[in-house]
């Protein structure tokens, strides 16, 4: 209790002084030892003050703080070095997936499944990095579709020779040890041991790399004759993102795979001009400004369907009724609070209150306009219990409701 009280007291004092005194030094991170905070504050403690947490405690704390990432890095490096070798023959691009549940093993052609279905992509030329636990069933389905995949935490390691892995390990170890002692390089991309993957596979780098996720917002292609031009390597990176603010995090994620994303970037492929402006705005130096190309949104599906007229598409689907104007609603169902807490996620901007109001307003629109037909295309299945299902949506989809019975 004394320790917590001291920590809180000094933290509040520091926060207070931080706002008004520019000469206050920044302590080392949120878990800084109390003596470090006192020193940062340049606090004249009276000689009679007896702190529960001594300077020795602080030293141990600081040592442990830095040791933890080193231990983690060592564990990751061991896994990377010792994993069985696989053949990289025929791999032309790397494709970064999101999680096992979104692998293209199902009917809705998630991730790059829609490109395979259209014959635009040969799965055997892809190396698919997949995060999370992949079930035996999912693994079998991936094999059935001839999709070559690798666990994300291994990076490109299984496709390197053991000598290359050792070289990468030494490089990663050097960076991690340097981070331990200097604290300047301390960061997840460096000290987590993913540096072992930062070397990448030269054979895979010999062709454009593609790294999408399930939702895409920003795509990018790096130069063929940039930093790696001397070695004749080409880099191409593709980032799919759902929120503009998450792009930065995705770039960090890419860095684990050896992608020097922003340096030397020459082409930026985006969904729309607004996203390009968002990305380019802080880059005032001409050399840091890639050429934006607007390609349009790319969802998992066949965009050629949009070449049909609405009446024609409805007729093919079996929706008749020429006098009905058709409104299609697309939602984003938020996760339940229990789900968020379980996986450590913060609240979504698409709150339960927002989705409740969204569907409530659509129901009001149906009541107001009897000649309007509503098609609901929910983004996620309603049956998992993982997502918050608003009452208005339950009412609309209830098989006994007047809305459903009217068709």
């Amino acid at each position, binding site marked *: 209790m004394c320790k917590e009280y001291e920590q809180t007291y000094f933290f509040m004092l520091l926060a207070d002084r931080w706002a008004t005194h520019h000469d206050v030094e920044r302590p080392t991170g949120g878990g800084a030892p109390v003596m470090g905070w006192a020193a940062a504050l340049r606090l004249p403690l009276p000689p009679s003050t007896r702190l529960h947490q001594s300077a020795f405690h602080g030293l141990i704390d600081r040592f442990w703080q830095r040791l933890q990432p080193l231990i983690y890095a060592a564990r990751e490096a061991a896994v990377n070095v010792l994993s069985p070798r696989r053949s990289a023959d025929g791999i032309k691009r790397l494709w970064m997936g999101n999680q096992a549940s979104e692998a293209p093993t199902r*009917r*809705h052609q998630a991730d790059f499944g*829609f490109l395979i279905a259209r014959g*635009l*992509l040969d799965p055997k030329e892809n190396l698919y990095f997949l995060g999370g636990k992949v079930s035996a069933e999912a693994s079998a389905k991936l094999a059935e579709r001839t999709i070559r995949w690798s666990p994300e935490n291994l990076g490109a390691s299984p496709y390197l020779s053991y000598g290359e892995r050792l070289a990468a390990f030494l490089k990663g170890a050097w960076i991690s040890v340097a981070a331990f002692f200097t604290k300047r390089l301390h960061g997840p991309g460096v000290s987590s041991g993913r540096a072992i993957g930062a070397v990448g596979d030269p054979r895979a780098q010999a062709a454009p790399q*593609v790294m999408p996720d399930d*939702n895409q917002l920003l*795509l990018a*292609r790096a130069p063929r004759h940039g930093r790696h031009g001397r070695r004749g390597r080409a880099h*191409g990176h*593709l980032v799919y993102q759902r929120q503009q603010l998450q792009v930065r995090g995705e770039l960090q994620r890419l860095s684990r795979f050896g992608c020097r994303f922003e340096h030397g970037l020459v082409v930026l492929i985006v969904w*729309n*001009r*607004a996203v390009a*402006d968002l990305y380019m705005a802080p880059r005032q130096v001409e050399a840091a400004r890639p050429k934006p190309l*607007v*390609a*349009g*949104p*790319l*969802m*998992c*599906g066949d*965009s050629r*369907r*949009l*070449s049909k007229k*609405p009446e024609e*598409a409805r007729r093919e*689907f079996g*929706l008749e009724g020429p006098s009905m*104007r*058709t*409104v*299609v*609603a*697309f*939602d984003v169902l938020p996760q339940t609070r229990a789900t968020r807490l379980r996986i450590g996620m913060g609240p979504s901007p*698409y709150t339960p209150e*927002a989705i409740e*109001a969204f569907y409530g*307003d*659509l129901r*009001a*629109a*149906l009541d*107001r*306009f009897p*000649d*309007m037909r*509503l*098609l*609901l*295309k929910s983004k996620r*299945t*309603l049956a998992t219990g993982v997502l918050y299902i608003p009452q208005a949506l339950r009412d609309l*989809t209830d098989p006994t*409701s007047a*809305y459903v019975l009217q*068709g």
Partner: protein
Amino acid sequence: MVFLPTDADPYLALAMADLCVGMPFTSPLLAGWANGRGGIYHAPLRLARYSALTELALCLTQSREELLARLEGWSHRGEAPHAPSEFIAPHLDPAQELIQLVL
């Protein structure tokens, strides 16, 4: 009211639409606008009120009354809301475009 399977092709839903309504900044509407469908971003709790794009008001409703008024205009006068040009992509088949650009 028809509830499409959640794993249905989103382009199928878009193709059947005279008008789309979506939560702010979701992708299907971008594809819809690029292909001549009308669309409204509906943010009933005013989620999108701080956008830098002032023209966003063309395709944004922030209350039930605004949504109903916009639907009224579309239903009776054929005023399908469209997005600012910054939101509209030039390519009708982005998958094909992507293959040519990157793959």
